[in-house]
């Protein structure tokens, strides 16, 4: 007998006490979001919670964005900035550093030489201060927001901002690879002292665009 048959057989024998017809749906009487907020208040809460977990938050409109991104990159003095294939070209129109376009053949070692990456996002969650990337063309592969040390993520407000985790899941497609990011990489493994930056980017800058 295969392990599969053995395990499924054990499960069925173990559940002999469960009535065959039992199939009550799970009630979902918890909240869809916590508290009522206007759109502006929701965006403010996102900014507040992002900052609380040590992300650096900026605000800009479409006109200010290229200059802001240029300044953020210049502060780090990077030689290279990594760009996913579908990033709106105007976002980087004012930036000096050499653009590295993420290609499938580029190795992790090549990515390791790049200082900064600029991406969009799929959705941002105000109550938890989370941005979610789903691998769309303006976000690129999962590794490009992981290996470089500096990640600039542009969130379109208000259309990409939701209040809560349940609302975010509704919008996301499970068939895509998803990365949820709440602040920069962090650890509390040494005496529970929080230290930012272990393996993921040590600096996360979120630009609220709108």
């Amino acid at each position, binding site marked *: 007998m295969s392990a599969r048959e053995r395990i499924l057989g054990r499960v069925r024998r173990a559940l002999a006490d469960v009535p065959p017809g039992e199939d009550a749906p799970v009630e979902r009487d918890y909240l869809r979001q916590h508290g009522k907020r206007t759109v502006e208040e929701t965006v403010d809460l996102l900014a507040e919670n992002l900052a609380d977990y040590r992300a650096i938050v900026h605000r800009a409109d479409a006109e200010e964005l290229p200059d802001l991104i240029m300044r953020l990159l210049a502060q780090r003095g990077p030689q290279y900035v990594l760009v996913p294939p579908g990033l709106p070209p105007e976002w980087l129109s004012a930036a000096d550093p050499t653009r590295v376009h993420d290609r499938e053949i580029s190795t992790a070692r090549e990515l390791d030489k790049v200082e900064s990456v600029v991406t969009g996002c799929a959705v941002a969650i105000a109550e938890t201060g989370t941005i979610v990337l789903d691998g769309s063309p303006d976000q690129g592969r999962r590794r490009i927001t992981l290996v470089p040390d500096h990640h600039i993520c542009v969130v379109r407000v208000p259309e990409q901002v939701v209040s809560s985790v349940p609302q975010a899941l509704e919008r996301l497609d499970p068939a895509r690879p998803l990365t949820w990011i709440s602040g920069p990489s962090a650890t509390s493994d*040494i005496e529970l002292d929080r230290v930012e930056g272990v393996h*993921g980017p040590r600096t996360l800058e979120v630009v609220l665009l709108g």
Partner: protein
Amino acid sequence: MSGTFVGMPAFPEAAREAVHDATLRGNLRHATHTIRAKRAKAVAEVSDWATLREAGKRIKDHTLRRLDRYLEQLEESVTAAGGTVHWAADADEANRIVADLVKATGESEVVKVKSMATQEIGLNEALEAEGIRAYETDLAELIVQLGRDRPSHILVPAIHRNRGEIRDIFRREMGEWGRPAPDRLTDTPAELTEAARLHLREKFLRAKVGISGANFMVAETGTLVVVESEGNGRMCLTLPETLISVVGIEKIVPTWRDLEVFLQTLPRSSTAERMNPYTSMWTGTTDGDGPRAFHLVLLDNGRTDTLADEVGRQALRCIRCSACLNVCPVYERAGGHAYGSVYPGPIGAILSPQLRGTGSEIDASLPYASSLCGACYEVCPVAIDIPEVLVHLRERVVEGGQVTSRGDKVVLKPAKGHAAERAAMRAARWAFSRPAALRTGQRLASRTRRLHPRTLPGPGRAWSGTRDLPQVPAEPFRDWWLRTNGGKDGAK
């Protein structure tokens, strides 16, 4: 300290050693109290916590009661998404599957995300025996691995080590495993973390095979979820060409939507954060992004035996948040190693004896590693009634009876060493079913109360060594009731 739990002494013995270690107690007290206070604050932020907790409990129970159906559905959706599903009835089978998968890639080293399931089956040791080196990449797991130590906490496995000890381990051992620690490494957490970052990055960048567990698997979509903070998880899940995930069969949730409950309760219960820094979700393989091959190993290893116990099966609801450890007065003093299992603390005290059976001395002692204060139940985000299961397992240890072991029903003999307890229970049963005898006994006890010893002689000595014997009142309650007409006569 050896890396294995085999041959561990029973809990009381292991704990006695631990409670005399002042450094250990200091480290533990600091850590558990810090996280306990933070968690309470994080939970208080969510006004519907009680409802979320109840929903989490109901989703998990529903899943467990239909586990066969959801396992088949999961297999189908993972396969449809480009993954390969393997089934492992026990640790040996799982280790064999993983070793063969690694060998098939031609690689002799793998990077690992912290995973309770692979610790439970001793995967690192099994791979070592096959000439494959497994690198732990979670900072705490790295500390444990470099220190040739064992994890002592579910969430922060090196909680028993302070910064000075960690610096010494890094200085001494890092060079053996790869990039050595920087010269003049101090004991600040920032410098220690930087040393780990440099040491591990070279492993991430060359790794061809990654091994992980998973926090959740969604039957409906075939999606796996890993919740972490450092980014080592993201590294292991996305940089290698082959990803092998070893996951206990109880980690299933039926639908995508079910994640909305656990992604709210897990981070707040475990790290006391609104959300952990990184959560990765993947469904099979994706062209051009992440590993080209994905293998899911579904692990039984005692879980179906646990499922067969109608009281004990609720332990399978556990989402490994570790909140119960941080509030437990016994864990705080004894530390994680005393539990002799990768699952320490209150949840370990009910999970290990069910997964492994109560045959060994350590497993038979674990249901007693508790004061039954109930704090663990209060904080559990899926409402596992740990005290109920503890009492249930104590009865099993003392009385024996029918249990399921490796899928077969067997009759368990009462454990050795509980003869006095059994005799006392038998005597109590006899007396309680004979009112006249009980009354006579109680009166006798009252009249001789001044002659009672303060500690018990013989086999009861161990019990009274840590407890005061209850004082017998001057008059039995039943006599008082009769004399005063249940207190109505006003007499005292």
